[in-house]
């Protein structure tokens, strides 16, 4: 059977040198493929090429047998891309937006739209300008599922969605795949990647050998951050990248709780009272994080006792970054 999506030696470089090179893969009808990579790996560039937003500088790309360089409009008829931005007219309601963009695809599916809006718990009769980030994302995702295209392309689809809505999204992805759509998902979240049939690992603009979720997670640290209204679960490749993540989270609001990796492991080092006191002086929501960082540092450096010096050492390293 012919693949729905066929990519051969695809390349696109920005003037600064970043982009993607020599990308080749195939994806079939009913398949959910994840393009996984860290920030700057080239996912968005690749998805922009696949969604015909930019033209490839090298290689070929076809959808349903239509080659993008020769039959771009036919490719566009068969895909529905969802970018990582919230692209709506703020002065129109969610329904009016969905109708407008649906009309560009020749669609008039109000009943289907209502069905998906209900699944996403979305009020379509509110102005899009009054939507939160998560609601705007849900509207975009609902529009994609209503479109029932041969290929659905999602860039960071769970951005702004809470845990429950992420599950709804992946249920709908499975339904779309069962109905014959090929679904391409670009993400840097391991949880999202785990819901796909196949993972293509994108690193520094090229595809690495196919990876399993287990292989991806192996060298990563899980960070669970509880904000007022939702829980974020991120995976970061090394503890060194934690300060950046914490800074990003703090910019969103004060988290109620931050947990890193495995909180309790056998053979945890012993805390002295003075070291405990030092941790208590930090803001309460940072206690768990500091404890976790210090314990990890102590284990890595073979410290059996956690003294105030160890706490200071870790805090000093954290502040340097």
């Amino acid at each position, binding site marked *: 059977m012919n693949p729905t999506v066929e990519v051969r030696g695809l390349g696109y470089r920005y003037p600064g040198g970043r982009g993607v090179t020599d990308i080749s893969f195939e994806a079939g009808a009913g398949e959910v493929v994840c393009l996984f990579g860290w920030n700057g790996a080239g996912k968005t560039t690749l998805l922009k090429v696949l969604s015909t937003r930019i033209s490839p500088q090298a290689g070929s790309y076809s959808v349903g047998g239509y080659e993008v360089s020769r039959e771009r*409009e036919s490719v566009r008829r068969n895909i529905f*891309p969802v970018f990582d931005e919230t*692209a709506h*007219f703020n002065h129109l309601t969610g329904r*009016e937006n969905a109708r*407008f963009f649906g009309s560009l695809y*020749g669609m008039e599916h109000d009943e289907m739209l209502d069905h998906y809006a209900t699944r996403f718990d979305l009020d379509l009769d509110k102005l899009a300008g009054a939507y939160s980030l998560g609601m705007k994302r849900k509207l975009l995702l609902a529009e994609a599922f209503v479109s029932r295209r041969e290929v659905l392309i999602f860039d960071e689809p769970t951005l702004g969605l809470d845990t429950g809505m992420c599950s709804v999204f992946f249920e709908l992805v499975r339904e779309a795949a069962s109905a014959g759509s090929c679904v391409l998902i670009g993400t840097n979240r391991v949880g999202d990647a785990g819901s796909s049939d196949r993972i293509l690992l994108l690193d520094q603009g090229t595809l690495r050998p196919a990876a399993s979720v287990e292989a991806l997670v192996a060298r990563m640290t899980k960070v669970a951050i509880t904000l007022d209204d939702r829980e974020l679960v991120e995976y970061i490749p090394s503890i060194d990248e934690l300060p950046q993540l914490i800074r990003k989270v703090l910019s969103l609001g004060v988290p109620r709780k931050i947990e890193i990796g495995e909180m309790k492991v056998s053979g945890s080092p012993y805390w002295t009272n003075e070291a405990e006191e030092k941790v208590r002086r930090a803001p309460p929501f940072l206690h768990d994080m500091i404890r976790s960082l210090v314990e990890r540092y102590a284990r890595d450096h073979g410290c059996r006792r956690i003294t105030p010096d160890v706490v200071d050492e870790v805090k000093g390293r954290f502040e340097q970054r």
Partner: protein
Amino acid sequence: MTVQADFRALAGQTPLRVAAKGVLSLLVIVIAAMVSREGPVLAILVIFTGVTGPTIRLATMKMEGTYDRIIVSPAAKPRFFLYFTWLWVIAVILPLMPAIAVVVILAGPWSIIPVLLGTLLAVTLGTLAGFAARGLSEAHLGAILTAGLLIPLAVIRTMVAPFLPYTAFSPVSPDPASLAIISLLPAVALVVLALAVSRT
């Protein structure tokens, strides 16, 4: 989608904004009419609002991401941009209706033809400028340059003047030759627009 809904989406006008522009342009035209300059002043209003409106709207849509969604959709791009132009001709003329009525009363019924053709030319050039601009600042620059070039050409007698629909708001001769000549530039601008957007 209805034309009315498309108008709200693409022209981004609200009844309040249209009414405010209508009152303001009427005031300006009445003052200009007192010194017999209603023709050139209407030309300036048409050019300025006709060029800047679609240019800034397209640049805003690019910033919102709605422009990219339209471009990657299967909708035929020349058809879409010509539809956008048509909606913007309405968006420019609607608030200028009272001002146009004053000019038509003073200059004669045939003056409506250069108003319509002039709006079409300004909006088409504005759409082209918005299409070419990569950001809001480029859009502003493009709109100012286009309108800034067109306004002196329209209100000062130059070699190009006979081809511009605005040259005479005094009764235009209804003979077919002069109508064909003043229709030339808007038609050329529309063809250039359709060709420019066809490869997006």
